[in-house]
């Protein structure tokens, strides 16, 4: 399956054929349809897609954060060889130690009722090793200095609502990395923040992941950010992967019409041209999808699109789920 991909490192995270559904009051909803995704050690992988594409659900499925009772899942999520899907205890054992996560809105993600210190201390205790109060304090301060917080003491004594979004973002990164996890899942980091702060966040994550050897699964709807950050990119549409490949190829030679349309929707700084956008809207989540989900919005759709389309491998580990993709000879 991964024969066309250059093998650089072992798979840290391997998701195969992951399908997910929720039962809601309006009926069952399918949110993921057969996702295959891998993250190798120390790799920075981006999962990109618009709202409703299922990228955040994927992240939460990996973390085991979905409500068990209302979720129907099939497939497999393996982390360092261990199966996590349907095994909440396994996932829980990894959370905060082996796998960490950063959320979109840092200020809302920190509990406003407890000081940063109280929360940080719990995170450190989660690391497993027994620390004296003094040692824990030292580690917290060091972790905060690592994210360029000059006065850790003050920040530790504060509450999230007293700090700016950027500062909270850095605190959250420090917490995410303090136990040197193997995988960091970043769900739209910095989206709620200003561009300069977002830029700073990305730089910091990049630097720290390099230092710690942490792999990153980066989830974003912002193509620009993805381009700057990731080594490899997965593009999602309506709960399925439509394209996968090295970042350079995705942005210079996208294969899937959806990826191309998405790129064409981004306003360009160099030219005052009106971006084209994508006509139509996402398919109804309550109805089953047959064939290529993008078909109704695609200018290239043909009758063959009505049947299931698998990811077809292109050059350089580049794959896309489109009937128009011609595999290299």
């Amino acid at each position, binding site marked *: 399956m991964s024969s066309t991909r250059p093998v650089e490192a072992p798979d840290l995270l391997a998701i195969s054929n992951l399908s997910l559904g929720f039962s809601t009051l309006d009926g069952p909803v399918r949110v993921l349809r057969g996702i295959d995704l891998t993250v190798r050690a120390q790799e920075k992988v981006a999962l990109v897609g618009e709202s409703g594409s299922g990228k955040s659900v994927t992240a*939460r499925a990996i*973390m085991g*954060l979905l409500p068990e*009772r209302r979720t129907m899942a099939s497939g497999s999520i393996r982390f360092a060889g261990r199966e996590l899907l349907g095994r909440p205890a396994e996932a*829980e054992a990894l*959370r*905060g*130690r082996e796998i*960490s*996560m950063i*959320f*979109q*809105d840092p200020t*809302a*993600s*920190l*509990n*406003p*009722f*407890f*000081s940063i210190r109280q929360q940080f201390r*719990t*995170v450190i205790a*989660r690391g497993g090793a027994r620390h004296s109060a003094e040692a824990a304090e030292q580690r917290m301060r060091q972790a905060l200095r690592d994210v360029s917080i000059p006065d850790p003491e*003050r*920040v530790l*004594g*504060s*509450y999230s*609502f*007293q*700090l*700016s979004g950027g500062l909270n973002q850095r605190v*959250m990164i420090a*917490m*995410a990395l303090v136990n040197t996890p193997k995988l960091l899942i970043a769900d739209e980091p910095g989206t709620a923040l200003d561009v300069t702060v977002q830029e700073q966040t990305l730089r910091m994550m990049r630097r720290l992941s390099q230092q710690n050897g942490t792999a990153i699964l980066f989830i974003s709807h912002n193509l620009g950010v993805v381009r700057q950050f990731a080594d490899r990119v997965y593009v999602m549409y309506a709960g399925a992967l439509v394209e996968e490949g090295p970042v350079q190829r995705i942005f210079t030679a996208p294969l899937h019409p959806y990826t191309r349309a998405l790129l064409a929707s981004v306003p360009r700084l160099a030219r005052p041209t009106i971006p084209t956008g994508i006509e139509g809207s996402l398919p109804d989540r309550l109805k089953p999808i047959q064939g290529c989900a993008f078909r109704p919005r695609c200018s290239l759709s043909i009758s063959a699109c009505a049947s299931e389309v698998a990811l077809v491998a292109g050059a350089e580990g580049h794959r896309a789920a489109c009937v128009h993709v011609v595999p290299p000879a």
Partner: protein
Amino acid sequence: MIRRVRLANVAAFLAARVGAGLLVVFGVSVLIFVLARAMPGDPARLALGPAATAAQVERLRADMGLDEPLLYQYVTFVAGALRLDFGTSLFTNRPVIADLAYGFPASLELALAAGMVMTIFGILLGAVSARFQNRWPDNVSRILSLIAVAMPNFVWALILMLLFAYWAELLPVSGRLSERLQAPPFVTGLVTVDAVLAGQWATLGDALRHLALPAVSLSLPGLAQVARLTRTNMVDVYARPYTEFARAYGFSEREISVKWALRPALIPTFTLLGMQIVALLGNAFLVETVFAWPGMARYGVEAILRKDLNAIVAVVMIVSVAFVVINIAIDLCVSFIDPRIRLQSAR
């Protein structure tokens, strides 16, 4: 920008609450004063009985100041009330404050104990419900709280009395202390507290046993409300990003439910408790009746039936002051639980 922990914030917050509380007490005093005097029936005639002559009635009216202009009566009343002088009860012919000094601590002790039972078990039920939302512990706890709310508390009082006093003979039926025991030296008027202060542990045990049934039956209907509110809030908190954050960072589910999610969820519950205290003091009447609890609520109802003006006004004022004080105390608690109130400047 990190704001420094400002005690001044708490002080300003408190000052605002006290100010608002004083306004409430003022409003209550005007309202009840006018209401009490608007009631038909001449309190003087009622007090003196049918045999009294018209001149006697007139004299008592004059003594009570009932023929003065209403505003003057009110000012006189406030002047007295500030010195804790609410006049004389027409029913017991004692200073109202002396009657209240006997009844209020008893009612307060009952209401506080009920409030505690209500808080502890309500929050417990609510937290269990929320943690196991839509699963059987949730359903059991919801049914339990519905059963609790489906009976008026005086019926609960009777049922509990029959169960634990009539059949099981586990707990006493009436009063605050057994006849053989001497009340501890009066400090707060709360027998349990006074017993602790005096180190009379046997008395404390006896007082607690007497308190158990009235407090539980008084707490039951409110308990259901607390449980429901706690459940709602905790479900809400569970849906917040910071709970997801806690899970993602490996905080244990138990710790989340007893610490990280519970504390934020308690704020509205506490606020409800503050407002419930009046209901507790009011409903206490019915429970006090069943358990012959020597409280103020019974006194208050008796006073209303007998048009004992001074007693009515005093009881209502005391209740409203208790309401205000307890609510300020709760606001203070909340401000310590919720650092946003403590630390954030009003913006």
